[in-house]
């Protein structure tokens, strides 16, 4: 079997491979530049993963994970402030709550945006998935991991033993249910009377999976630290992050993009806390790349609903989506978040 498979993979490689475009010299030069940039950033108070964790999480406890009542939402385990942690995704699958959450989400759209159309990814159709119905919320079990090297999220990690469920709206999948935020991702929707497509992220986090700060990344959004932050929303403004240049892999263009993020806190009529984020992404030339409205609804039971409505551009970094807006405003997103079932996430 091993030899058979190796032969198959060997056939996927061409007889003549394209020349390597980088050299060890160019890597060294880039590495040195990044090291200098990193040193300057650290000295001037740039955001670093460990620093952010130290701010947003309670102080260290030694071995194991203990439970604290400190953060909003409660019961986030106390973590070593010198350590680096992240959630390890599990195998997402349907649960009894999947249909219920899915029905509530799509039911809200039917009631408030009649005529909308779910646009399944071609990938699903190509793989024979029934895309006649929009997806429901998968249930994933995520495990809190600690990295061996506190400065390196690619280092080995070991489980802390803490496992939590998360619900996430994602397209169905043929053979396996990929986890929380990877392929195939959030569904696309054609809203009535709109030319462009809207993409909707939706996730529900139980108490004990997040902090209530506002410096972390949006789910699905590129941001420093990625999974190593535990906040649910990003309210840092005007941030530049050259690492996000890989966003343009598919387009074969390697350029930085810039975030302009507006954030405000409010609450629902019945007193639940809401953090709203307006996100505008531009390229180096100032052209608009994408826009998004997102929010977190912190529910009374300590769980949190994260919704994000993103409008992607059409033709790459030179695109201009100045005339495009996410279909749902913050009031509508809040109403949608509040319409989801309020059963405990379990």
């Amino acid at each position: 079997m091993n030899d058979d498979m190796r032969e198959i993979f060997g056939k996927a490689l061409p007889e003549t491979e394209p020349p390597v475009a980088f050299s060890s010299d160019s890597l060294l030069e880039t590495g040195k530049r990044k090291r200098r940039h990193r040193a300057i950033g650290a000295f001037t108070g740039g955001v670093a993963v460990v620093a952010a964790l130290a701010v947003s999480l309670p102080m260290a406890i030694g071995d194991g994970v203990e439970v604290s009542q400190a953060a909003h939402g409660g019961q986030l385990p106390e973590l070593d402030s010198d350590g680096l942690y992240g959630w390890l995704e599990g195998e997402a699958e349907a649960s009894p709550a999947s249909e219920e959450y899915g029905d509530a989400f799509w039911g809200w759209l039917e009631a408030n945006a009649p005529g909308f159309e779910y646009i399944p990814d071609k990938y699903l159709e190509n793989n024979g998935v029934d895309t006649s119905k929009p997806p429901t919320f998968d249930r994933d079990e995520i495990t809190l991991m600690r990295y061996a090297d506190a400065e390196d999220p690619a280092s080995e990690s070991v489980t802390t033993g803490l496992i939590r469920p998360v619900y996430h709206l994602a397209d169905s999948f043929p053979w396996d249910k990929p986890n929380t935020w990877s392929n195939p991702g959030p569904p696309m929707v054609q809203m009535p009377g709109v030319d462009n497509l809207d993409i909707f992220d939706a996730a529900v986090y139980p108490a004990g999976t997040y902090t209530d700060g506002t410096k972390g990344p949006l789910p699905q959004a590129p941001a420093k630290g990625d999974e190593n932050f535990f906040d649910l929303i990003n309210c840092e403004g005007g941030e530049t992050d050259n690492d996000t240049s890989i966003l343009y892999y598919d387009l074969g263009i390697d350029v930085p993009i810039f975030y302009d993020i507006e954030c405000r806190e409010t609450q629902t009529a019945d007193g639940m806390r809401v953090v709203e984020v307006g996100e505008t992404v531009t390229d180096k030339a100032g052209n608009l790349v994408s826009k998004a409205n997102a929010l977190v609804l912190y529910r009374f039971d300590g769980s949190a609903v994260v919704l994000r409505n993103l409008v992607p551009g059409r033709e790459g970094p030179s695109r201009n989506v100045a005339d495009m807006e996410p279909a749902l405003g913050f009031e509508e997103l809040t109403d949608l978040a509040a319409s989801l079932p309020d059963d405990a996430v379990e």
Partner: protein
Amino acid sequence: MKPSQEDEYRSYVAARTTAMRRLAYLVCGDWHRAEDAVQDAFIKLYLKWSKCTTSDSLDSYVRRMVVNAAIDTQRRLWFRKEHSKSDPPDRPTRPEDTPVERVAVLDALACLPKRQRATLALRFWEDQSVEQTAKIMRCSPATVKSQTARGLRSLRGMLTDSFQERLQGANR
């Protein structure tokens, strides 16, 4: 970094570029992205070189970074999405003279989910054990086994039909 460490780094890059680039290509199916993934991984490696050279699992560490970069759809998700309405994603155009057998294999691999594809590439191309693959993919050994079984089943099914059809078509 000391000059001697730079030399060690250069030597490692020179020795492993081809293998890592092939691994990335088998995971993502595109040479440009594969090269970007490897370049990104090597730059990160440079930043950690003084620690990494003492590690017994340097290759595993680099493999993890390469595979992560190659399957990282999260960061560019909406760009993939916007293209997917008109074209199947992750199927780069190929030269017309690409051998039919290779096209069949590439098409079959492209139909696999990326994590599944990466699992197969690590297991059977890179000869990584279930446990080693689990560490690289950051999942449990049970997940590696299930991904492998599903991937093999799917791949076998796709290649059995399409392989023969394409070969017959090419021989006509």
